[in-house]
């Protein structure tokens, strides 16, 4: 799979460049990750999801937005693999296109909520004093509400729509990350290597970004990947309640919602999107567990 010379280059004890050192470290992590079959299963699910989203137009056999009303509520068959919904749209095609929405939501939440939480948590932990008190009470205030209820309130206040749903979820997702980042910061705050960094004359921002954040990021990555499943479920929940994606666009949560009136007679309408949500959530959980083995030093 990987050539012997590349392998020895990666695993060298005496790397010749910054790039080789970093690549070697990454490769060692990958080896640990690859040893875990469940984590690899999670990775395969994620890769399939990405492939589905990228090549949606090629993969889906029918138009996801407009169906033929003569074909409404057909059971799974050779023509419609997973059946059709009440507007005669092919459910398989809608699930394939729905992968784009799902990836868009989790991607956007991950790149907004995690850095916000990281910055707030490390700043609070490193600076201390009234800055810490202020930031952490704000975090507590957000944590005091159940996540879904708060996201619902934000989504309702901001109005329906994909961007607003993402914003609502991101606003509710950052507080646990801030807590983790602060806790990690407190454990390294008194360390000699930070004292050594201060002895170089480095300023607060350099220490925060260059020395403290690298120590917090591993546990944060693990937590974010484990939270992905929850984020997909909240996004699906918002879609189910009509606060997510605007109607003709396919979204797994709203697809489940549309099928609920025929759940007994035409079970396939809400079952297949539900299975898709379930598989992807499971995939992210498996990846998160695998990443914990790689990144979290305490697990070893």
């Amino acid at each position, binding site marked *: 799979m990987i050539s012997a010379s590349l392998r020895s280059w990666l695993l060298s*004890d*005496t*790397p*010749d*460049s*910054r790039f*080789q*050192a970093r690549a070697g*470290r990454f490769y060692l992590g990958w080896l640990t990750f690859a040893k875990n079959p469940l984590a690899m299963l999670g990775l395969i699910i994620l890769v399939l999801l990405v492939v589905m989203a990228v090549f949606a137009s090629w993969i889906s056999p029918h138009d996801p937005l407009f169906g033929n009303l003569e074909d409404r509520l057909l059971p799974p068959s050779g023509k419609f693999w997973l059946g059709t919904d009440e507007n005669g749209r092919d459910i398989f095609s809608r699930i394939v296109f729905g992968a784009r929405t799902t990836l868009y939501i989790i991607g956007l939440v991950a790149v907004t909520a995690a850095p916000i939480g990281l910055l707030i948590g490390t700043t609070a932990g490193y600076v201390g004093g009234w800055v810490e008190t202020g930031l952490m009470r704000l975090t507590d205030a957000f944590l005091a509400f159940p996540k879904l209820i708060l996201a619902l309130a934000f989504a309702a206040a901001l109005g329906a729509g994909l961007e607003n749903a993402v914003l609502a979820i991101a606003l509710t997702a950052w507080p646990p990350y801030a807590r983790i980042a602060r806790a990690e910061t407190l454990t390294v705050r008194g*360390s*000699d*290597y930070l*004292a*050594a*960094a*201060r*002895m*170089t*004359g*480095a*300023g607060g921002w*350099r220490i925060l970004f*260059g*020395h403290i954040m*690298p*120590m917090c990021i591993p546990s944060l990555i693990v937590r974010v990947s484990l939270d992905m499943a929850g984020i997909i479920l909240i996004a699906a929940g918002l879609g189910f309640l009509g606060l997510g994606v605007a109607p003709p666009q396919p979204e797994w949560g709203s697809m489940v919602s549309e099928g609920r009136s025929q759940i007994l007679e035409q079970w396939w309408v809400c079952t297949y999107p539900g299975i898709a949500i379930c598989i992807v959530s499971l995939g992210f959980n498996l990846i998160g567990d695998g990443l914990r083995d790689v990144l979290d030093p305490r697990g070893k």
Partner: protein
Amino acid sequence: MIEIENLTVVFGDSDNRVTAVDGVSLKVAAGESFGLVGESGSGKSTILRAVAGLADSTGSIVINGQKQGRKRDRNFYSQVQMVFQDPFGSLHPKHTIDRILTEPLVVHDVPDREAKVRAVLDQVQLGPSFRFRYPHQLSGGQRQRIAIARALILRPKIILLDEPTSALDVSIQAEVLNLLDDIRNELGVTYLMVSHDLGVVAHMCRRFAVMRQGKVVEVADSRHLGTGTLEHAYSRQLLVASKGYDRAVIDAFADL
């Protein structure tokens, strides 16, 4: 070079105060190697941290003719550097040796970093092959050499040494001490060195201060260690203790 006047460091709040350093005054001349010895908790490391600006203190600290305030400026750190006791805790676990050594140069905007990193690795007798390793790939002695290299790279005039060898094997201790000695002879830096080991101090320092409960009980010449002519009873006791465990001697110790 270093003039400390009436230095006091207090930890804790009003209910729970510990006076770690209690009115200490010291003078260290340029190019000198000055030792601080004493038992655990005698405040010797705290003096170093106060001089380095890592602990709040009252009293006056004058470095190279400049009185230091609560906040040290960048210029201070190009003159004063520190080597910590534990080489396993003083190097950032996620930074390569290259990054650890380059960082001070970046902060102080020093040009020609590539050559300087190579030169300093050479100076601490580690080859260029160590440059892109991570600290966990190094032994304790090698790590302490990196810590010394980091302290050297800005060409400081003063290096504060906080028990630089006590976390190392005896065989490695001698190597590191000889390295530190060579560096001082070569570059003429001033050392302020903390140790609980009188043997190390005798090897490295001409003068040393004996500390106890935050106070200096005696400033002595290390040549007196050989003849055993120390003035203070506590210093003599410390000298006897450094020669190894002897039941009869320990029983004869007075709680001074």
